């Protein structure tokens, strides 16, 4: 008995350092933002803070710009994460089965992830330049010259999805590959001996066993994807009008250009709320899915 409690107690040694550090760094920002979100604080021009209750929140919920940003962000995030997962998992499977040149691929596939998003956006601006870019040449070959990729709302969003997919598929590849490598090979050997076809091995063994990891990977991509800002900032600036403005870009403009701190904090909490809702729904759904496979 005494041994068991001693064993139990050691768990605190494991978890407290991480817990304390995260708490220390995130507690103050959270408190600060919460307090300020009920105030009207502008640093520019400097006006004394005023308590305004839930006015900031009401203004956000009533603003067309917020709902527009919400829509743009959701479209980009869901479309690009779906593509990232599909391509990323497929690539991880391919690499896992050690196709010719796999070691070269392994490094090459990772590169996009290590480029700063702002850098990627600058490069994309060259590639998608409507006159001087290679993508224009590609489309010109099909008779579609000078397509305004970045100044038409729907095309700009499609371009952003492509860029997000390009940059973050490596993330999925890397993790799914690590997951595949961690799977016990005995099970697969047995399945192979039993002559179970490959697609069924995938459906009945690989996919279910990697489901928890898949859930985690998609979840992280969703959370991170919701914060998309640099690419949009550099490529379209949110334009034309606000037709490609994402939520974080909206918050950035309010907070860092206009220094409307109260509004930005309220916006952040609304944003947090939205992400948590999405996250909870997503996790609940994936729990059900996992249970079905158990």
């Amino acid at each position, binding site marked *: 008995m005494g041994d068991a409690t001693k064993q139990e107690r050691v768990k605190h040694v494991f978890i407290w350092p991480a817990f304390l550090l995260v708490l220390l760094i995130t507690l103050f920002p959270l408190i600060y933002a919460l307090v300020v979100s009920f105030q009207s604080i*502008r*640093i*520019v*021009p*400097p*006006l004394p803070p005023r308590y305004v209750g839930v006015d900031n929140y009401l203004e956000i919920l009533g603003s067309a710009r917020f709902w527009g940003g919400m829509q743009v962000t959701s479209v980009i995030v869901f479309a690009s994460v779906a593509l990232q997962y599909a391509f990323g998992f497929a690539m991880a499977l391919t690499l896992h089965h050690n196709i010719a040149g796999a070691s070269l691929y392994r490094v090459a596939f990772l590169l996009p992830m290590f480029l700063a998003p702002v850098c990627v956006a600058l490069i994309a601006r060259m590639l998608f*330049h*409507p*006159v001087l870019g290679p993508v224009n040449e590609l489309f010109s070959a099909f008779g579609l010259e*000078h397509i*305004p990729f*970045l*100044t*038409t709302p729907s095309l700009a969003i499609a371009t952003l999805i492509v860029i997000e997919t390009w940059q973050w598929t490596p993330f999925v590849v890397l993790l799914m590959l690590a997951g595949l490598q961690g799977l016990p090979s005995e099970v697969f050997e047995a399945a192979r001996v039993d002559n179970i076809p490959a697609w069924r091995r995938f459906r009945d063994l690989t996919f279910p066993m990697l489901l928890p990891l898949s859930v985690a990977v998609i979840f992280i991509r969703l959370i991170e994807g919701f914060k998309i800002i640099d690419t949009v*900032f550099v490529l*379209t*600036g*949110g*334009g*034309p*009008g*606000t*037709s490609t403005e994402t939520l974080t870009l909206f918050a950035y*403009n309010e907070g*860092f*250009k*206009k*220094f*409307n701190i109260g509004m930005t904090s309220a916006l952040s909490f609304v944003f947090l709320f939205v992400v948590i809702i999405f996250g909870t729904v997503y996790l609940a759904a994936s729990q059900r899915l996992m249970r079905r496979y158990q």
Partner: protein
Amino acid sequence: MKALLLATALVPLATFAHAECTPDYSGVTLTVSTQNGPFIASALKSAAEKWEKKTCGEVDLVEFPFSELYPKFLTAMSQQTGDFDVIGFIPAWLPDFAPYLSTMPAAMQEGDAWLDIHPVYRERLMSWGGEIKSATMDGDMHMLNYRADLFEFPGNRQDFKAKYGYDLAAPKTWDQYYDIAEFFQASEAVKYGTAEAYRRGGQQFWYFFSHAASYTNNPNTPGAMFFDPETMDAQINNPGWLRALEEYKRGLEFNPPGALNNGSGDVRPLYAGGSVAMNIDWADSGVLGATEGAIKGNVRTAVLPGSSQIWNSKSADWDKFDNPVASPFLAFGGWQLAVPSDSANTEAAWSFVAEVTSPETSGEAIVTANTGVNPYRLSHYENLETWGSIFSANEAESYLGAQRASLDSPNVALDLRLPGFFSYTEVLEIELSKALAGDVEPQEALDAIAAEWNKLTDEFGRDKQLAAYRASMGLPPLNN
């Protein structure tokens, strides 16, 4: 005698370079910050080397992306971190920065070097709230660049006269400007008519302002371009602004395809590379064209086109003038240096500023490639011979002449400088890009901007904003 000694000690001269440490700032390290190089940063770097040699101090130059300079400086200064000793920024931010800046030492506000600065900068752009808070280190305004080889080619001149009925020359009005743009767009001599910036975040609204100045900066109602100087009501949806927006948008026809993506940075190589007959830009296009471009020797610069009709916001009618009135717009207004009051080394910092802006050091910077520094001192316009390293004689004459004429113009139009600048320009950029993309009608866009501007003014305090606006336009305070 004493005054002379003082003056020589304060105005750093190259002859003292050998004397050790005058004034002595050994042990002092200044953190100087501005946008990423080479423009402006490289000028500060070479000035820093001189200053270090002279004073034994040290300079640490830190660069940030242009789009992040404003938040970076503002957060650091408002929290008194003491991170920066000298900051390089733009006049539009001065109203927001002024509370955190130290005032220029009185000794720097006198003497020949002081009087040598063009009055528009010295008296207008460097001051806020009645005090000198910053030092101009670069002069800037929008100008029209054109190509001499195209404009002087007899064939072009003949064809143009035949078609439009007057001589081909630098346009005096925007109507002429569009005639010329149309002419060259159709001609075989060059690919496109003109180049202007249309990209959101690419200095777009300054181009729009340059058009608007000609129709709204009425000499009969001074300072009424952006707001009514008595009530602070937004003027941006009046017929003068509407005409400017319609014309600015019409210009897309004579720009290269994809021009909606072009920022001011893209407009420069288009001109210097010989793809367009004209462009509108700050002084940088001229230098780029004369040094790196395919059009060497043919760079010509003129004052922005004007108009013989200007909207009068008081009488709500167009005023007609016999001759076209030039309303050259001082877009941007050039880079400035200032010393935050939380700096631990204000004295040394101002001495560094004095070095950068001294007639001698700045005189070198304006003729050095890639410094991005353009003339702002009277001596800069006068020393024609120093320009030989960049321009041919004809080029130098038109380049400097246009800048000087813009500044000296009786109806010069000053840029918008107001507390909360970004709040005002954000809605402007959003609506402008909608109108340019054809999503909304121009009038609709302008009405939306005006409504938001009025709302912002009320939010920030109408009286305070009005007082600030009048000061920025050089009008005396209202007495009531």
